[in-house]
């Protein structure tokens, strides 16, 4: 069992054991539903929504404030809370989601929370926007956009077809993004970064990370990185283009291979053939004093490496 699971189990047990504020209600007149609860500064807050938006901002109080605007009279808001754990959920009748494009049935959840809480948010088509949160974040949507900031605690942001955006604030958060067809933008982070995409693209700027792991099926990945002597970069794609731009001076060992794609590097020697019978090519060399290690692999995608 992972530490996260243990934490969640503990939080759930605490929720069951302690007196809690709980209940489900609708908003028949379209009036916002407001909730307040005092919580520990490192409490866990779980938010679940279907369609609309989840917006989380921070304040200096040890309170969670919720303003829920439910445009459908059929939507039910479930709110369950104690000092260590808050659960907010919008339930649709019979669990069905709307298919039409109108936005009349949006449910908008606006929260203000202590900076250090742990946030878990997941939605179907609702967007998720988080700002100023220092605690751990796990944000997941099917077709909604996911936007947040990263400080020192881990951030995991996932969307199937929506865009994902993580903006670093100089902290050393480990950032993880997963996307299928949407695009991912990660900027200004100084911690480790793990990104996966199927056909969407990843654009990332990372400084001083120990570990960067990026994978795609057909999507393009472009990363601008500042490497330390202990940095480890691993980029892999089946048919997408991999582009690595490294801030000079470059001191790294490169191990680059493509089964049938081109390898283009403005550093070191030119790529050479891996076999006389297949179109594969590889490139292995040490630039500068070495130290950092860069591995890039594609099946048919192109690979580009440069220091500018």
């Amino acid at each position, binding site marked *: 069992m992972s530490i996260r699971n243990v934490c969640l189990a503990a939080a759930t047990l605490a929720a069951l054991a302690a007196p809690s504020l709980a209940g489900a209600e609708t908003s028949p007149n379209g009036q916002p539903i407001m909730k307040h609860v005092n919580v520990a500064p490192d409490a866990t807050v779980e938010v679940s929504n279907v369609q609309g938006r989840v917006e989380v901002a921070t304040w200096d109080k040890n309170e969670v404030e919720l303003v829920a605007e439910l445009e459908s009279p059929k939507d039910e808001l479930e709110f369950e809370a104690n000092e260590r754990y808050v659960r907010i959920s919008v339930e649709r009748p019979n669990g069905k989601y709307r298919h039409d494009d109108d936005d009349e049935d949006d449910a908008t959840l606006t929260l203000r929370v202590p900076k250090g809480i742990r946030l878990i948010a997941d939605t179907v088509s609702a967007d998720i926007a988080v700002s100023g949160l220092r605690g751990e974040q796990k944000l997941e949507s*099917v077709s909604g956009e996911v936007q947040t900031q990263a400080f020192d605690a881990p951030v995991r942001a996932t969307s*199937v077809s929506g865009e994902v955006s993580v903006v670093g604030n100089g902290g050393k958060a480990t950032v993880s993004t997963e996307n299928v067809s949407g695009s991912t933008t990660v900027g200004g982070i100084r911690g480790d970064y793990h990104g*996966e995409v199927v056909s969407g693209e990843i654009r990332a700027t990372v400084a001083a990370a120990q570990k960067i792991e990026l994978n795609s*099926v057909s999507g393009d990945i472009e990363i601008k990185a500042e490497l330390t002597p202990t940095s480890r970069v691993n980029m892999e794609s089946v048919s997408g283009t991999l582009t690595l731009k490294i801030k000079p001076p470059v001191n790294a060992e490169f191990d680059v*291979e493509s089964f049938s794609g081109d390898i283009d590097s403005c550093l070191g020697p030119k790529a050479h053939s891996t076999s006389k019978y297949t*179109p594969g090519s590889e490139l292995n060399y040490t630039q500068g004093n070495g130290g950092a290690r860069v591995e890039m692999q594609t099946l*048919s995608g192109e690979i580009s490496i440069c220091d500018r």
Partner: protein
Amino acid sequence: MNTIPFGPRNPPEDPLLAKAAELPKDVAPPHDLWPGIAARLGEVEKPAARPFRWPLALAAGVLVASVSALLTWSLVRAPEGPVPSTQVAKTTPEPVPTDIVPVKYGPNSGLSAKDFGARDELLRQFRGRFASLKPETRAAIAKNLAIMQTAADEIDAALAKDPASGMLKGMLVGTYKQELQLYSTVVTAGDGLTRRI
């Protein structure tokens, strides 16, 4: 028992070599052996068979290029971005998928029945949710599963040529994980406490 002494021999003093020297210098084979040798070289790649390198390399290149072209064609034929209005007027709207086709992994994938069993259970739950998603989300999912299928086929074809490639195996496992992740994201979305962590 006859013994053959070690060390340099003087042919005139060595009865074995003397007998060998009596054999005719030119012995013609009973028939031309070259077609048979050439045929066998054609069956199995022989790196040392220099005259046959270029056809093999050409064939491999054509194969990979064909697969790449097919992949490119399959991606290009389904435009992602906005299309010119002249095309919009002519094309009919694409039908919204009501179900998906899971990725089929080829014989070189190395994935086991246990792997597929785990996927099938997740897939069952995924299908329970799929129909309730927005049409454009369903279309995006179906399209990306098709992209994964193309990738899996391409990797499988490459693995057939280079079965020991760790790079290719890693890519195939990565594609499989991406497929599972896609199902998992949909299954757990908006699920409150039942979601995975």
